Each structure stands twice: as structure tokens, then as C-alpha cells.
């Protein structure tokens, strides 16, 4: 690694972005209102070749910077006159702040003399060049905190990989520490509380009992509920038959062979009347696609019904006959249950109606929100599934013989009592090897065998013994913690093969290494660059990589985990429902996954001419010719209105308020996640001299924000944030295209970028971003590197980021080029010992 020294940076391939929050706090906070004449130099104007001489840089600084940033004034805490610009690497922390400002085009401030574009570029090149050369000669890889707890996702994935068990236990574990612009895998903040250990103990028991297939202590009842405002007027899942409507399909792990009850409950409206009882509808219950039973629901109400609108609250005269009431409240979905013998293992339970066409008449009513369905015109509508319960096992016979998890665990089966302990040792050695991510020693196995013995004795069977040993394994510090042992000397060192294997698998799979990766590492081959790259490419090709890079990395980077938190005002947006929100999330997941699977340039995330939609989403986006609930790739008809992440509903909805768009949230999102310029939080201090006088209501959001920016303490940042967000004003709260805004005025989507460049609308914003081709890859690289390491990036990581981006440029910034670049970077391959200072 050290031998492949970076070449001199090609100036045209770079654009620095600050990672250090404090850096950008100053960039955004101190500067602003940069005129469009003071734009950052474009790439075409800069000279190629060697950097300028240090004396030129010094002259530049004297001319443009030190009149404020000197020892006496120290504006923004900077005294550039005291530093040597000929060896900026000696004070890289400070110079990276300067570089970030110059790259953003935000210094010197408006009104003061500004250098020309060429001078700008040469100075930045000179500063970066020297820092990068010094770094290449002696890279500082930084330090990840020694003890690194698995987060919920990693724990869950590890369980999946150890036991071949597809189970979501995340909701049973405490949340992981995180922060805006951060990831939930940063070692430094992942703590271990009593609550964590309590949950680990509890989950370990549940998971291992299920994986081993022990007969549950007693039958359990589990429920899957459909969220109230998810539409059920179409086929809901690829696991349900074509020609079905509504309901749900889900994978359920049947713990043992035995009898189970599958029970369906239908949706009720606000007066507890079942929906759709006015006509007969067919309801199917399936297991692994096979029809277990077909019920007919509805159409059997007898007696006098309640008033047609169900008006009133059940007083005499409003309620129906007792018979009718009973049918509508309880009888209509009584007895929707099947009791069947099921073989242990994961199986798909499907509940759906046979589709019969039905068209609503009159005006569509706004979909409601809250805990009840208040729409009362539902007697002749569709019946909907509320929830499905699975009870059991009853008459449990025996553990399933061939569940995937039993096959994964029981690599041997003892035929005699004498064979039990050796077989248990074999099973536990293999699983401990994977779980501890290192070769196991006899002491490790002895501890587990001790628990095998206890379980064997207390539970009375071989399986009980294995289960208890595995329960112990799952709370072992060697499983729950990644311990990065560091030598005391030298100051920096290369990671060993085993540590590298873990770092790689937690990066690409958010999980433990597989047997092959461990084997390569244990042979000492992983640190060989050729082997390493081969393994990276193998792991990237594994579906686990896409899964984890989408659900873990991209979901956090792009705030996809917040889609479920979105709330929309149904009065203003009657065309909104939860199916739409679910579609938003799916769209972005499929889109990002597609770019990874096809190994596209990350720039395609911004300017792709395609996206993924189902009928619901296509209708929302105004794309014709898409029917059904299945998602498919479509070319967007008008690239000024769609195409790329910036026009995705998930982004637009998570940056809006329920009843209006928020240029502030959108501007901030763009700065943080696309431009790589973290915004500082609002000023802390409350100026108590300012009286809390009633403000006045303004109609347009532009006016309101303009008023906000009159406050100098707000203006310093919001003059940068807001104008960027204005560019997306053509998208409403739920990402629909609009030409008229909330206040009834024509949409004005004119905004501006940090350096003052005017941008108009989606296409203007996209064009601005594409004109600086390395900027977005730089942001992606920063985010992905921090995620890969599990730590916050610091100023000393900037040379590594620049190098990865430069190298990836030659490969059009493909996903694989950035991933391989990260893995081959000294920052990933090395560590800093604890005693070394930075």
C-alpha cells in the first residue's frame, strides 16, 4: 500500500468538501451572500501541471485572507499570518478548513476583493497537493475505538448467517446511538447498557430455541397487522396469487412440526362495523401458495340495518336490529380460522381476497389518519384484512427434521449417548469460529460444552444441550463486541488478516465473515492486495452486499428510515395514503440497488433517466402504462420533472411538513447529503433582549423565510440553506409535481447555490451538480468511508477521500471503484496505535 504512492492530484478531478463539522459551521456561518460574479472557478480555466510555488500561495493569502485572519483579529479563530503555507501539512487541521472554504467558493466574503478563477484553483491545488503528498508518505489512518459493539442490524444479520434464520429481531433490541449525518455503527458511541444486556439475554433465548427447533414452552399467538391506511384494492405482494386483492403475505418461522391455527380478522370502521359486509366476497388462506381454505364473507346480514350512513351512536332508532348489529360487529368475521398441521421451518402465509372489480362512485373521499377509519360509506365497499394471527403449536410432535436452521446447525447427529459430546463439540466449534470471527481454542469450546451439559441435563435432550450452549454463545463478548486490539508501537500499523476480514464483512455485509473469508484470512492471504481485491469483488457480487449497502448504508445516508415517520395532512393531500409512502421507500431502495447491481456510476443516482414504480406510484408521478402492484423499471417521460434521487418521493416527503413543503429542510438535506457541506445547528443562545412579540402570518413560504432571514443570527446560514431548497419547490409535500404552491401562487423554483450560482428547478439543480463531476462522488466517498470504518471522519482523512475519488474517476465513479478504493486505502487497511497522537 505504501508503495503505491498517489500521483500528484489532477486538479480537475477534485473538489474538497469539509467533513469536519466545525469547518462548515464557519463556512456557512461566516460567509455568505456571495454574488454570482464570485463563482467558484470552473474546471476549464485552471492550468494543468505543477502547483504554484509556495511564494505564490503566500502572496495570495496576504492579498486576500490575512487582512481578517491574522494574529490580531483572528476572525473565525484563524491567524493565517502565523502559519507557513509552504508546508500546510504541518497544520493540516487548519488548512483543511481553508481548503473547504475556497472549494465551496465562499471566501473571501462578498464585497471584498476576490481572486480570479485561475488563482483560486492554483492555490487550492497547491495546498491540497502538499498535504496529500505528506499523507501519502506517512498516512494517518486514524483510530477506531477499541471496543466496537455490534449494532442491531449487524446482530440481526449475524443471526441470519449463523443459523440460516430469516427473522427480524431488531424491534426486540434497544436502538443504536446515532446523530444527524452520522451512521449507527460508530464504535465510539455504541454503548452497552443494562437494557442491552437484558435484551441480548432474552433474544438469545428466543432465537436459539427457534433455530434449534425446541418445542415452545407453551403455544404462542403472534399477530401480523396491516396498517390501517394501506390500500387493499390490488394484489399486495408477489407472494399472493395473480387475481387476488388485499390481505398480506408474510414469512413465518414455524418452530416445530405441529398443528397451528391461522386466524383472520377483518377491518372495522369507527363504529366497530365490519367493512364491506354488504356483499359476498371470497377470502383465501394459503400456506406456501397452496390454498388451505376459501371462506365467503359478507352478504349475510339479516334484519333491519342501522341508518344508511351509520349516523348516530347506537341509540335506539339509529342502531340496526340486534341480529344485524351482531353480524356487523362480530359475526361477519367469526370463524375465519384454519387449523392445519404444518412442518417446521419458514413458510409463507398468505391471506387475500379473490379480486372482483368494484369502482367507487362519486367523489373520492380523503383517506383518514389516526386510529380509526372514519369513512362511513363502506357497507358496499371492499372488505379488508385487519390482521392475521398464528397460534400454536398445538399437539407439537417433534422438532422439524429439515428446517434450514437445523441443517445449518446440526452438522452431525449422535446415534448414541457416547457420541453426543463429540458431536456437540463439532457443532459448537464450527459456530463459535464464525461467531467469534477467529480460530477457536479448546477453552472456548470447553465453556460452550459446559453449557451443553447443563442444557442436556435440564432439558433432557441433545437438542436442549445445543440450544443452551448457543444461547451462551450469543451473549459472549467475543460475539457481541469487535475488539480492535492495537499494538503500543509503532505509531501506525497494518491490520492483521483476521481483523481485516471482519472489517470487510461488516462493511460490505453488515455481518460476520463467511467461512471462505475466514479461511483466506487464516491462511494469511487477505492482506495480499490481489487476493483482497478478489474477495471484495466476490463479496460485492453476493446479494448480501446490495442488501446491506441499500438497507443499512443508503437508508441512513438518504434518511430512508424516516419514511415511516412521515405524516401528511389528509385535508390538503387527499390523494395520500400509506401505500404511497411504502412505494416511495421501495422506489429508492430498488433504484439504489439497481445502480449497485449494475455497477453504475454513483453520478447516475442524480441523473438517471429511469426509476422504479408500481401502479400507485406511477399514477402519482404521472407515468402511464403501469398497472398492478409489482414494481418495475420505467424510463421517466420528462427528465425536467423526474429522474434521479432528487425527484424521489422518499426524499421530498421526508423533507416536508404535513401541510407544506420546507425549503429549509430540503436545502439542509441537499447540503448535508448531496453537496457534502454539513450545516451547523441554529445558534444556541436565546437573545432575551428580543421580546416575544406576536409575529404576522405570511401566506407564502418565501415571504415567511425572507422574514426569518431578516434576523442576522438566522441569516448567516439560512441565506445558504433556503435558496438551495427553493429549487425543489415544484414538488409538493408528497413529491407530486406542481405549478401552484400552497399559497395559490405560481411556483417559483429559482434558487441559488452556496457560491451564488443561480439555479432553477430540478433540472437547474441537477445541472449544477453535474458540472462539478467529482463533487457528488466526493460526498458519497466521505459517507461510505465513515460507514466502512465505523467512525466519524476527521481532517486527516481528507487526503484519503481525495485519493479514492481521484482513482475512481478513471472508472467513471462506479460503485465498485469507490468500494475497492476504500478497501485499498491506508485508512481502511491500517490503524493508529493508542499511544500515537494525531
Amino acid at each position: 500500500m505504501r508503495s503505491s504512492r498517489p500521483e500528484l492530484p489532477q486538479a480537475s478531478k477534485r473538489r474538497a468538501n469539509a467533513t469536519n463539522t466545525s469547518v462548515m459551521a464557519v463556512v456557512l456561518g461566516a460567509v455568505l451572500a456571495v454574488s454570482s460574479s464570485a463563482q467558484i472557478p470552473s474546471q476549464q480555466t485552471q492550468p494543468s501541471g505543477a502547483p504554484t510555488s509556495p511564494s505564490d500561495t503566500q502572496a495570495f493569502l496576504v492579498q486576500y485572507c490575512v487582512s481578517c485572519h491574522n494574529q490580531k483579529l483572528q476572525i473565525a479563530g484563524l491567524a493565517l499570518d502565523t502559519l507557513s503555507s509552504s508546508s500546510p501539512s504541518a497544520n493540516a487541521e487548519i488548512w483543511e478548513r481553508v481548503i473547504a472554504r475556497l472549494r465551496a467558493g465562499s471566501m473571501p466574503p462578498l464585497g471584498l476583493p476576490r481572486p480570479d478563477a485561475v488563482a483560486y484553483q492554483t492555490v487550492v491545488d497547491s495546498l491540497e497537493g502538499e498535504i496529500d503528498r505528506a499523507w501519502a508518505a506517512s498516512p494517518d489512518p486514524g483510530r477506531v475505538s477499541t471496543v466496537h459493539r455490534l449494532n442491531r442490524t449487524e446482530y440481526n444479520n449475524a443471526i441470519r448467517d449463523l443459523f440460516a434464520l430469516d427473522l427480524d429481531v431488531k424491534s426486540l433490541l434497544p436502538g443504536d446511538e446515532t446523530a444527524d449525518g452520522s451512521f449507527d455503527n460508530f464504535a465510539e458511541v455504541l454503548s452497552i447498557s443494562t437494557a442491552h444486556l437484558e435484551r441480548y439475554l432474552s433474544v438469545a433465548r428466543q432465537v436459539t430455541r427457534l433455530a434449534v427447533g425446541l418445542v415452545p414452552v407453551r403455544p404462542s399467538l403472534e399477530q401480523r397487522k396491516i396498517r390501517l391506511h394501506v390500500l387493499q384494492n390490488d394484489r399486495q405482494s408477489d407472494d399472493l396469487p395473480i387475481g387476488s386483492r388485499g390481505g398480506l403475505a408474510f414469512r413465518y418461522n414455524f418452530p416445530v412440526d405441529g398443528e397451528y391455527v391461522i386466524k383472520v380478522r377483518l377491518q372495522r370502521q369507527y363504529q366497530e362495523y365490519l367493512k364491506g359486509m354488504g356483499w359476498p366476497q371470497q377470502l383465501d388462506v394459503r400456506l406456501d401458495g397452496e390454498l388451505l381454505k376459501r371462506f365467503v364473507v359478507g352478504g349475510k346480514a339479516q334484519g333491519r340495518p342501522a341508518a344508511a350512513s351509520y349516523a348516530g351512536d347506537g341509540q335506539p332508532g339509529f342502531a340496526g336490529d340486534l341480529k344485524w348489529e351482531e353480524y356487523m360487529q362480530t359475526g361477519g368475521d367469526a370463524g375465519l380460522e384454519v387449523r392445519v398441521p404444518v412442518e417446521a421451518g419458514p413458510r409463507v402465509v398468505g391471506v387475500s381476497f379473490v379480486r372482483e372489480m368494484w369502482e367507487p362512485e362519486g367523489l373520492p373521499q380523503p383517506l383518514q389518519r389516526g386510529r380509526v377509519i372514519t369513512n362511513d360509506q363502506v357497507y358496499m365497499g371492499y372488505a379488508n384484512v385487519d390482521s392475521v394471527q398464528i397460534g400454536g403449536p398445538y399437539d407439537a410432535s417433534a422438532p422439524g427434521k429439515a428446517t434450514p436452521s437445523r441443517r445449518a446447525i446440526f452438522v452431525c447427529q449422535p446415534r448414541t449417548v457416547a457420541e453426543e459430546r463429540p458431536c456437540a463439540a463439532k457443532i459448537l466449534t464450527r459456530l463459535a469460529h464464525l461467531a467469534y470471527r477467529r480460530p477457536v481454542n479448546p477453552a472456548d469450546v470447553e465453556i460452550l460444552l459446559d453449557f451443553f451439559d447443563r442444557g442436556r441435563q435440564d432439558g433432557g435432550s441433545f437438542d436442549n444441550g445445543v440450544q443452551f450452549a448457543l444461547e451462551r454463545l450469543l451473549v459472549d463478548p467475543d460475539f457481541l463486541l469487535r475488539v480492535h486490539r492495537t499494538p503500543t508501537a509503532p505509531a501506525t500499523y497494518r491490520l492483521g488478516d483476521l481483523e481485516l476480514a471482519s472489517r470487510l464483512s461488516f462493511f460490505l455485509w453488515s455481518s460476520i465473515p463467511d467461512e471462505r473469508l475466514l479461511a483466506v484470512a487464516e491462511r494469511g492471504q487477505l492482506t495480499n492486495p490481489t487476493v483482497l481485491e478478489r474477495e471484495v469483488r466476490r463479496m460485492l457480487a453476493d446479494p448480501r452486499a446490495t442488501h446491506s449497502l441499500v438497507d443499512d448504508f443508503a437508508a441512513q445516508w438518504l434518511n430512508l428510515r424516516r419514511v415511516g415517520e412521515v405524516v401528511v395532512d389528509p385535508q390538503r393531500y387527499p390523494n395520500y395514503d400509506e401505500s404511497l409512502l411504502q412505494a416511495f421507500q421501495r422506489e429508492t431502495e430498488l433504484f439504489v440497488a439497481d445502480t449497485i447491481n449494475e455497477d453504475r456510476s454513483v453520478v447516475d443516482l442524480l441523473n438517471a433517466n429511469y426509476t422504479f414504480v408500481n401502479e400507485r406510484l406511477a399514477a402519482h408521478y404521472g407515468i402511464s402504462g403501469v398497472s398492478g402492484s409489482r414494481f418495475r423499471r420505467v424510463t421517466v417521460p420528462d427528465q425536467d420533472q423526474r429522474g434521479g434521487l432528487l425527484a424521489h418521493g422518499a426524499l421530498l416527503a421526508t423533507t416536508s411538513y404535513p401541510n407544506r413543503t420546507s425549503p429549509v429542510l430540503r436545502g439542509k438535506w441537499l447540503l448535508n447529503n448531496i453537496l457534502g457541506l454539513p450545516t451547523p445547528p441554529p445558534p444556541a443562545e436565546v437573545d432575551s433582549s428580543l421580546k416575544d412579540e406576536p409575529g404576522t402570518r405570511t401566506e407564502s413560504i418565501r415571504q415567511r423565510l425572507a422574514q426569518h432571514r431578516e434576523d442576522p443570527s438566522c441569516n448567516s446560514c439560512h441565506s445558504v440553506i433556503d435558496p438551495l431548497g427553493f429549487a425543489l419547490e415544484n414538488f409538493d409535500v408528497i413529491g407530486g409535481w406542481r405549478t401552484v404552491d400552497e399559497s395559490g401562487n405560481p411556483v417559483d423554483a429559482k434558487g441559488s447555490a452556496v457560491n451564488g450560482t443561480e439555479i432553477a428547478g430540478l433540472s437547474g439543480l441537477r445541472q449544477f451538480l453535474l458540472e462539478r463531476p467529482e463533487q457528488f462522488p466526493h460526498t458519497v466517498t466521505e459517507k461510505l468511508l465513515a460507514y466502512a470504518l465505523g467512525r466519524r471522519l476527521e481532517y486527516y482523512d481528507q487526503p484519503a477521500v481525495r485519493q479514492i475519488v481521484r482513482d475512481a474517476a478513471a472508472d467513471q465513479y462506479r460503485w465498485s471503484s469507490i468500494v475497492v478504493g476504500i478497501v485499498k486505502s491506508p485508512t481502511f487497511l491500517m490503524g493508529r496505535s493508542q499511544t500515537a497522537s494525531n
Partner: protein
Amino acid sequence: MTFLGKSLSRRTVLRGVGATVALPLLDAMVPALGMRARAAVKPAHRFQAFYVPNGMAMEHWSPKGEGTGFEISPILEPLAPYRDQMLVLSGIKASWNYIHAGASGSFLTGATRGGENEVDVVADVSMDQLLARRFATETQVASLELSMDGPANAGACTGNLSCAYTHTISWRSPKQPLPMEWNPRAVFEKLLGDSGSTERSAREARLREQKSILDSVSEKLASLKRDLGPRDQVRLDEYTDAIRDIERRIQKAEEQRDLKLPEMEQPQGVPAAFEDHLALMLDLQVLAFQSDLTRVVTFMLGKEQSARPYPQIGVPEAHHPLSHHNNIPELVAQMSKINRYHTQLFSQYLAKLRATPDGDGSLLDHMTILYGSGISNSTRHSGENLPLLLVGGGAGRLKGGRHLVYPDQPSMANLLVTLMDKLDVPVERLGGSTGELPLDTLSGV
């Protein structure tokens, strides 16, 4: 509390003697079940924090008048039935006034500052945790930390700081914020065990299993610690502390093996509707207090900076953006609906506490509940004149029915120190405290 049924109540004894002096312990006062002496002799004094987010519509909160004659305000009106067990506190200032992070981050810690960036997580030990340390010797569960919101998803926290500041009010150490549990099922298992059975033998067998696992993990941890330098041991110390906590709990559970636990159906998960979820969470809290499984609960009705809308009361707007109302009277009035809805929900909870007998009175008589928010006027994140209540009989240590106004803006940290005193766990200092706050004198009367 049926298991106390046969014992002689303290009040009965006092009536007989007709004295107000402290009495020696009489055998007759020890309850029928023997091991529960402490509860009968002196009902435990429990503490609860009940946090509401995003400040308050102060115009609709602050009562007119001081002392006993105050006029109840629209937001406090749902609490009128509890007036004589309620102290309204005005004029207290947040110890760390920093946007939203400071509001919740300092609420129980009295901290005066937070971290510098996303990974610098620092406040101070919160008062509930100081109490928990003390009460851990007597109850199975040292403390409960509960919330109505799920774990943080980055993107809606206070910029550049850990989401911990807005998502929890409990800090075990200055560097360890505690996760708040929102899944009723996990709370249930914490209180009543995860054996999957309510039978005593199954519960006890499970405790033994856990104990053997913890013993073994402890040994392994000790050897791991020897491998690492002292600087790296902090996280492992957390792990060791967690093991000790659970071991102590198992031991307590064994000691209190005759403790009758109320029947409750195990919740399956987090109900979709806010009201259903809240009802379960509050029932679990009553259960925990009632059976004396714990004496310390922190509860966030909403995480700080919560954007939850309340369409059920005619507020479809998201709470947090609405709280930046620019002092426009209609918007303030709209937000006050949320504030009042919260006091209504709180009042329903108080009703349950009052209806639950405990020793010679009700649970509420033996509780001190700190209700409030870490922000007053939310539009500018003001930390002055925080909206705060102390509710409950405080086991005879709180005199309600008053509105106290502190003219010189004392720090919230001082109030926390005073509360520690009231709970008989005196501390010299808490966070940035500079002294105590007079609660017992009537101010302005």
C-alpha cells in the same frame, strides 16, 4: 395491594396513639408476608419524571396569581382534581439552554453543556439514575426508562449532536445516555421475566439459567479486560456493570420470591395507534410501582423535537414545526391544544395512581412526579421560566396546592438537588447546581 391487606395501617396506629411523634416499629405493622416489612412500615417514596416535548404555550400554561390562591390555567385545567397535590413552579431556568438537545439533555441531569460533535456524547448523571443506584438495593428493577417514540433515526435530531440528547432524559454516567424502551413487550419482560410462563417454577428456572450465563460471561470479560489497556476498558466496564445489575436483580427476585405479581397479558409489540400504545405503557408503569418492582421511572410522552401530529384533537400539524409559531396567537392557541391534550392524558394516569391503594393511602400519595418540558416559549427555544409541575403527595414531603414563582431565575439543577433531598437521597451537587431551591415556603404570599 392485596398482600398488604392484613397488616395494620400506619394511620390506624397513629390514630390510636394520637401522637405526631415518630413511633418505634411495632410487630403489628409488619405485613402478613414478613419479607415486605419496609413497604408497610413506611410506604416507599417513588419518583417519576413525565417529560413533554417542544416547550409550552406559556400564555395558556402559566397560572394567574401566586401561592395557594392561584387561578388554574387552560392547559392545567385537566389537572384541577389534583390541585391539592400539585405544585406549579414558575421562573426556573434550564441549566443548559441549547436548542432542543439542551432541553431534554439537561432536564434531569442539570448539565450545563453538551458535546462538541456527533460522537462527543457528554452530559451529567441524571437524578433518576442517582435514585436508582440507591433504590437498587431494595427493588428488583432499579429504574425504568420509557418513551413513546422508537429509537432515533438520524435526520430529525439536533444537528451535529448525538440523537441521545433528544431521545432520552436518563444518563447513567456523564458519557452514557440510557436507551428508552418503547416496546411494551420488552417492558413486560423486564418486569415479569421472559420465561414465557407466569408460573413461579418456570420463572425461577429461567433466573437460574440467566445467572449461569452471566457468571460465565463475567469470567470471560475479566480475561478480556486483562488484554486491554486501561483507556479501552470503559466500554467493558459498562458491560460489567450491566452484568452486575442483572445479577443483583436476579438475587432480589429470589429474595422476593413471594412477591405477588399482578396478572397482565403479555403485550405483543408496539400498537399502531398512539392512544393504545400509551395506555399499555402507562398500565405497565402503574404495575411496576404498584408491585414495588421499581421506584424510579422516567417517561417521555414525546421525544424532544417530536413531529408527532395530533389529528385526533384537531391538530393535523406536526408538533415541532408548529412549536415554531413565531408568537402568532392563532398558532400558539393551536399548539396549546397539544399541551392541554398532554395534561389530559397525564390526568388520566394520575387517576389510576390515585385509585391504586398503597399502604395507608394511594400510590399517588407516595409519589413525586416531575412533569414538564425543558423549553418554555418554543419559537425561540427559550430556556427561561420553564413549565414545571410537581405532582403527588411526595410521601408527605410535598405540600401541594400552590403556585411558586421564583423571581431570580434559579437553575433547574437546583430544583433537582432539592428533589433528591425530598426523596431522602441527598446530594451536594447535581450537574451545574449552585444550591437548593426553597419549595416549602410560600413565595409571593
